[in-house]
Each structure stands twice: as structure tokens, then as C-alpha cells.
């Protein structure tokens, strides 16, 4: 048994944004680790903090947001404490990233081959020619047809699905150990989504990647994730291996989310969650889901801890009503 630490460890991460001079936590004290070849899915609805978590890990937060506490260890190096130079060295080399919008994530005025190989020139000191050769291999790896001829093509000459493949090639150029995928298939049609998810799964196995998958789609989670963390209002409310989660969703929000999802199979019924997510400035203290929760009680004004449920130490829930 080797004792290599997981490629990505996040401990007590809190990210805040400054609005009208006040700090608001958009990610509150979340911790997780992802082992090699493992996929952790962060799910939740818009504004739950899942994208902010991804941007915190990559150090690409917008100027108004910042990590206010916690540690982010990429191959043992703390991204939060490190200098900007160290962070730049890790970014693109040890962490690769793909984003939601393949249409806008590639630079429209630079050729594809150059964009894919650029990180290799930056991190591994490859010559332009060597980077170009490697870019061709990478494009073949992500199954872009006629890769050699398309090195000099521009993004607008590719379809959405192909661009997302190019993004994947770009993210994996330096053979990172961690891949952050922020809603990578949300903008794609379902048949293309299936192709891209299959490609990522395949590459993950081949490269031994630790994948952090950000998504709002529980169907995608069920298809590709090993573990899942559900977020609401900046808090993780449930964390479980994927099978345990779909077999026994425990947090009232997780249950409600699953019940609200229309399915092709099944009885064709669904149950909406009443109300809506309160704005950041009006979040209740304690459990943030309490304003929409059917199990609300007095004690919910205090934030519950993550507690294991059902005798499974891997399956934890942040809920007073569900704590045994």
C-alpha cells in the first residue's frame, strides 16, 4: 500500500464576496479530498456555491471574491498560502480546467493547435514545434478527426462538441493530476453530452485523474460520479458515495431535488420544492435551507454539523432532523 496523498485535498474552505462593503460567505467551510481516478460531483442549483468552489480551487475567482479561510492542497502544495507565481506554476500544469461554455472558452483569434500546446511551452519549456507536435497527439487523444489538418484551424470552425474536446485536450496537455470540470456538458446537446462524458471517463482512467465535476444535473452525477456532495446556499448538506446517495437520499433538500426532477422512466410525477433560494443578503442564520424545509424546527437556527447516517461513515448529512 502506497501512502501517496490524494492529488486534491480541500480543508475548511470558505469563500466570500464583498457586496456593499459587507462580506458574504458564498462557500462555507467545505472539506473534501479526491483520490486519483476518482470523480467527486458537486451538485446544486444556481447560486449554491458549487462554481465558486471550483474557481477557489483553481485560483480564478472574480475580483470581488476571495478565499477567506481554509487550505487547498494540490499534490501537497497549499494553493491558498502559495505565492501567485507558485499558483501560476501549478495552474495548467498540475490542475487542468474545463468550463461550461465551449463556444466562448477558446480564444477566437488564435489557432487551435497553438492554444492546445501553449501550456506545454509555458510549463515544460517545449519549443513551438514540439508543442505543435504534442498538440496534434492530444487532439488525436480526444478524438478530433483529422487532427493534423486542424491544428491551424480557428475555434469558429469547430462545432460545440468538438470545441469541448479541444478544451479537454488543452486542459490535459501537461498531464495534470487534477481536472476541474465546471458544468462541462451543460451547453451541449444530450447525444454530444454522452460522448464528452464518455471521453472524460476514458481519459480519467488512462491518466489516473482526480476529477472534480461541477454540475446541476443529477442524471450526469448518477452516470459518471463516484461520490457526490450536494450544496445549498454555500453549505454542503449531504455527502455520500453515489450509490448510497441515490438509494437513500437523506437530507430534505436532496430528497426534494430528486423528487422535483422529471424522469423518462418512472410514473411521470414530480414534486416541486416550494419557494426559492433566498438572496445572499437575506440568508437565514443556521441551516440555510430552513426557509423551504418541511422538517423545520426551532433548532434549525443553529447550523448542524455533518453527521454520518445509516451506519455509513462515508454518508454524511447536515441536518438536525436527520441526525441520529
Amino acid at each position, binding site marked *: 500500500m502506497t501512502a501517496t496523498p490524494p492529488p486534491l485535498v480541500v480543508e475548511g474552505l470558505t469563500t466570500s464576496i464583498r457586496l456593499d462593503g459587507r462580506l458574504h460567505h458564498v462557500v462555507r467551510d467545505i472539506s473534501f479530498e479526491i483520490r486519483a481516478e476518482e470523480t467527486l460531483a458537486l451538485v446544486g*442549483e*444556481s447560486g449554491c456555491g458549487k462554481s465558486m468552489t471550483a474557481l477557489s480551487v483553481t485560483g480564478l475567482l472574480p475580483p470581488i471574491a476571495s478565499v477567506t479561510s481554509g487550505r487547498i492542497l494540490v499534490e501537497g502544495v497549499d494553493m491558498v498560502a502559495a505565492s501567485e507565481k507558485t499558483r501560476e506554476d501549478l495552474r495548467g500544469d498540475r490542475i487542468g480546467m474545463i468550463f461550461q461554455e465551449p463556444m466562448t472558452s477558446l480564444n477566437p483569434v488564435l489557432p487551435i493547435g497553438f492554444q492546445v500546446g501553449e501550456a506545454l511551452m509555458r510549463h515544460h519549456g517545449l519549443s513551438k514545434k514540439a508543442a505543435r507536435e504534442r498538440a496534434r497527439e492530444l487532439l488525436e487523444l480526444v*478524438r478530433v*478527426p483529422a487532427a493534423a489538418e486542424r491544428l491551424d484551424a480557428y475555434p469558429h470552425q469547430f*462545432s460545440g*462538441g*468538438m470545441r469541448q474536446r479541444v478544451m479537454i485536450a488543452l486542459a490535459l496537455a501537461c498531464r495534470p493530476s487534477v481536472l476541474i470540470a465546471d458544468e462541462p456538458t451543460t451547453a451541449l*446537446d*444530450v*447525444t*454530444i*453530452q*454522452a*460522448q464528452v*462524458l*464518455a*471521453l472524460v*471517463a476514458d481519459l480519467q482512467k488512462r491518466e489516473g485523474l482526480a476529477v472534480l465535476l461541477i454540475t*446541476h*444535473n*443529477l*442524471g*450526469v*452525477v*448518477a*452516470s*459518471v460520479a463516484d461520490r457526490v456532495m450536494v450544496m445549498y446556499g454555500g453549505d454542503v448538506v449531504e455527502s455520500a458515495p*453515489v*450509490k448510497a446517495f*441515490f438509494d437513500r437520499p437523506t437530507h430534505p433538500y436532496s430528497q*426534494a*431535488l*430528486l423528487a*422535483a*426532477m*422529471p*424522469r*423518462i*422512466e418512472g410514473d*411521470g*410525477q*414530480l*414534486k*416541486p*420544492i*416550494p419557494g*426559492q433560494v433566498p438572496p445572499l443578503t437575506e440568508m437565514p442564520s443556521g441551516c440555510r435551507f430552513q426557509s423551504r424545509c418541511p422538517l423545520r424546527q426551532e433548532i434549525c437556527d443553529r447550523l448542524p454539523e455533518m453527521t454520518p447516517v445509516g451506519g455509513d461513515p462515508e454518508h454524511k448529512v447536515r441536518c438536525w432532523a436527520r441526525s441520529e
Partner: protein
Amino acid sequence: MNATPLLDIRDLRKVFTTRKGWPIPKVTHVKALDGVSFTVGRGEVVGVVGESGCGKSTVARVALRLMEADGGSVGFDGADVLEASRLDMRGLRRRMQMVFQDPASSLDGRQRIVDALGEPLKVHGLADRSTVRDEVARLLDEVGLPRSALDRYPHEFSGGQRQRIGIARALALKPDLIFADEPVSALDVSVQAQILELLRRIRAEHNLAFVFISHDLGVVRFFCDRVVVMYLGRVVEVGPVPEIFVEPLHPYTRLLKISSPEPDPAVAVAMTFQDGEPPSPTAPPPGCHFHPRCPGATERCRTEKPELRTLGEARSVACHHPL
């Protein structure tokens, strides 16, 4: 069952011409609708599904004459919509309404809700100055919004609430048929479920017919009676819910179904590499448009266009070798 349908779309055609290029633009033609036919009965909800660029949104816009068709006919309750005069069209528009995907973009940001919903009532003489507030308040109530919403502006509402306003506006003229173009795809799951419930209730209360355009099979499964599957401007399969998803006849319908992720690890997405991209709509392949991606394609599929034919009860498919 065999009464004349409320909406009868026959062989509808629409070609988009785009000019692109530099410095002299090249003209390309895209057949957004390449002979589309289907019907909608009174009070029936028909889903139109397909991926981006298949022409599903164009159907609604052409049928409402928001754009002019290049061929075919649209019958509405016996009237020929595409040939209707300006005056007749006004009457027809009252009975056919539309709900848009993005309510923020379909509402005039400078109008208060009372004006946005009151204007169609006044234009069509359904309310006057004295009754309009009450009438609008009643509409808001119907879609679950409080009377206090009357004097507010669209930007003061959340996405889900704005979609309720969009629905209320479509209901204002008491239509028989509503075209809903991806009305819930911009919404979060929890809000999406609220809107779907609302649509279901309204439909039952008013015996409304819907043409419900969506890319999400789960949503269609929930709301629709019948489904029209489109691929590159053509209808490839028509059938009732849930049979069309349980036992799809067209390989494309099947591909859509197995690609749609379900929240259940037991029925995870079939992540096979059907390599290759969907063909470009500017140069669709000959014969059956789907043949390059079809595992069962034969020589015939490459050359001969399959016609939509009836198979069994209430089902039809455009495929030489249905599953």
C-alpha cells in the same frame, strides 16, 4: 378522435438564407423545416423534441407567422393561417399564443406588470381602463402571483416568477392553443417543477392545447400526451407518451433516450462513442439524414429519403428499418 384537429401542420417548409464570408459574403441555405407535418387535437399537448438546430423552434414561429413560411400549410380550427389576411390574423393570434424560453427577453423591461398584461386586453377590447387592473390581478392569481405584483417591473422578479408572468400574458387572450418554446429550460430544477405543475393545472382548467418544444425528454414525458421527434428539419417519429420512449421505433429517438441521463445509477447513460458530429444543417447527408450516425444504416438509407408512415396504433416513423 377523428374530428378535425385544432392545429394541422402540413408539409411546412422554411429555408434560412445566411450570408457569411469576407469580403464578399457567400450565401448558404439551411432547410430549417423540410416538409414538417403533424397535428394537435383540442386540449392535446404535443411535445416537439430534438437537438439544437433541428428546427423545433422554427415550427412555432412559422405557425404563428412571426416568420413567413416557404411552403406548406398551417390549419387552425379550419382556417388557413398562412393565407389569412391581416385582419383575420388578428383574430387568429388571439387564439394562438406563445410562451418563450427567456421571459426576461420576452417582456418589455419598461412596462409595469399591469401594463404588460393589460395592454393585450385593451388592444383586443377585452377590458377597459376601469376593469383592467382587476382583470390583470385575476390573471396573476391564476399563475400564483400576488396582487402586489401589479405595479412592479419585470426585473424585480426571479426567473421562475417572470416565467409565470409570461404564462399569464399568454393566457390573457383566452387562447385555445399555446406554443411553449423551451419554457422551463432556463430554470433550476426546483423552480422548473413549480412551472411544470402550473402548466399542468392551467391546461386542465382551460382544456388548453399545447405545442411544447423541448430538448429534455424527462420534461416532455411529464407534460405531453404525444411527441414529435425532429432531426435536421424533418419529423422522424411521432407517438404517444410514454410508449415512444419505452419502445422507440426510430434509432434517433432511441439514441436521444439512452443519451439522456437519469438520476439513477442503474440506468446510467449509455456512453458509447458514436463518433462523429451531427452533420451540418447546411449540407445534410442525402437519403435519411440520420444514416451517418445510425448503427443499422443500409445502402437504401444512404440514397432514399424515408417517408413518415403509420405503424400500429397512433404511431408513425420515418425509417426504412424501424426498431
